[in-house]
């Protein structure tokens, strides 16, 4: 267990359809709300412009890590220090903290199970932190429970 976001979605569509919606840059852009400059290529930087209302000033930048057809699509994603229009600095985000986004696909009886994870918020080895949180007592315990509840929900 660690600090990661995990979401599971059942999709009523064949795995090939879901794979295309994830990895075709135009289709990805439709639902993610980003206008990408070109196709996703393993090992290469993907660039574009966010089209999500209120965030149109943001550039999209990610590095495609894995493209295993109909199984796994992943990219690393910088989290800029600020997304606020006044403070956001477009350009080089290679030094920003980076998370890993993974889309895993599994065939089910009715279609496809998509498991999304985003991890790397902590940049720390091991799961010792939450272990320690669990042992914590006192006024802080409630806050930690919130974190645990959140992480447990995702796990």
């Amino acid at each position, binding site marked *: 267990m660690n*600090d990661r*976001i995990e*979401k599971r*979605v059942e*999709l*009523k*569509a064949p795995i090939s*359809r*879901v794979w295309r*919606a*994830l990895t075709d840059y135009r*289709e990805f852009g*439709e*639902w*993610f*709300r980003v206008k990408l400059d070109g196709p996703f290529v393993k090992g290469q930087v993907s660039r574009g412009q966010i089209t999500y209302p*209120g*965030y149109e000033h943001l550039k999209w930048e990610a590095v495609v890590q894995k493209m295993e057809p109909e199984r796994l699509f992943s990219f690393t994603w*910088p*989290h*800029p*220090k*600020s*997304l*606020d229009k006044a*403070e956001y600095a477009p350009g080089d985000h290679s030094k*920003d*903290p980076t998370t890993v986004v993974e889309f895993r696909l599994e065939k089910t009886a009715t279609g496809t199970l*998509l498991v*999304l994870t*985003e991890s790397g*918020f*902590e*940049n*720390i*080895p091991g799961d*010792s*932190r939450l272990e*320690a949180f669990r*042992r*914590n*007592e*006192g*006024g*802080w*315990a409630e*806050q930690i429970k*919130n*974190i645990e509840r*959140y992480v447990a929900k*995702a796990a």
Partner: protein
Amino acid sequence: MLQKQRRSLAATGGAHAPVFAALGDETRLALVRKLSGGRPHSISQLTEGTKLTRQAITKHLRVLERVGIVHSVHAGRESLFEFDPTPIEKMREYLNFVSEQWDQALIRLKSFIED
């Protein structure tokens, strides 16, 4: 969550990585555990029962202080350290914010594929 709140949360995005990193150490976690009861402790009290020197403990406290998890307060000639839950609470809010963005994106993906 209101759009405005969301944006102010998003605005502090990458700033949470140092908090995560500061907590990624057994000694610092032990310090946070001791302080999380709410009572300020001196460096001597925090060094007690550990195998570390005062200098080492002080160094770890400074790391926690830099990200705002602990604050030092002066009591006479002594420095006391106290716990501040705010950065951890904000970190949790940020994770919730990112999580909620994904929920929405996946709803859009679902209708994009199924409709």
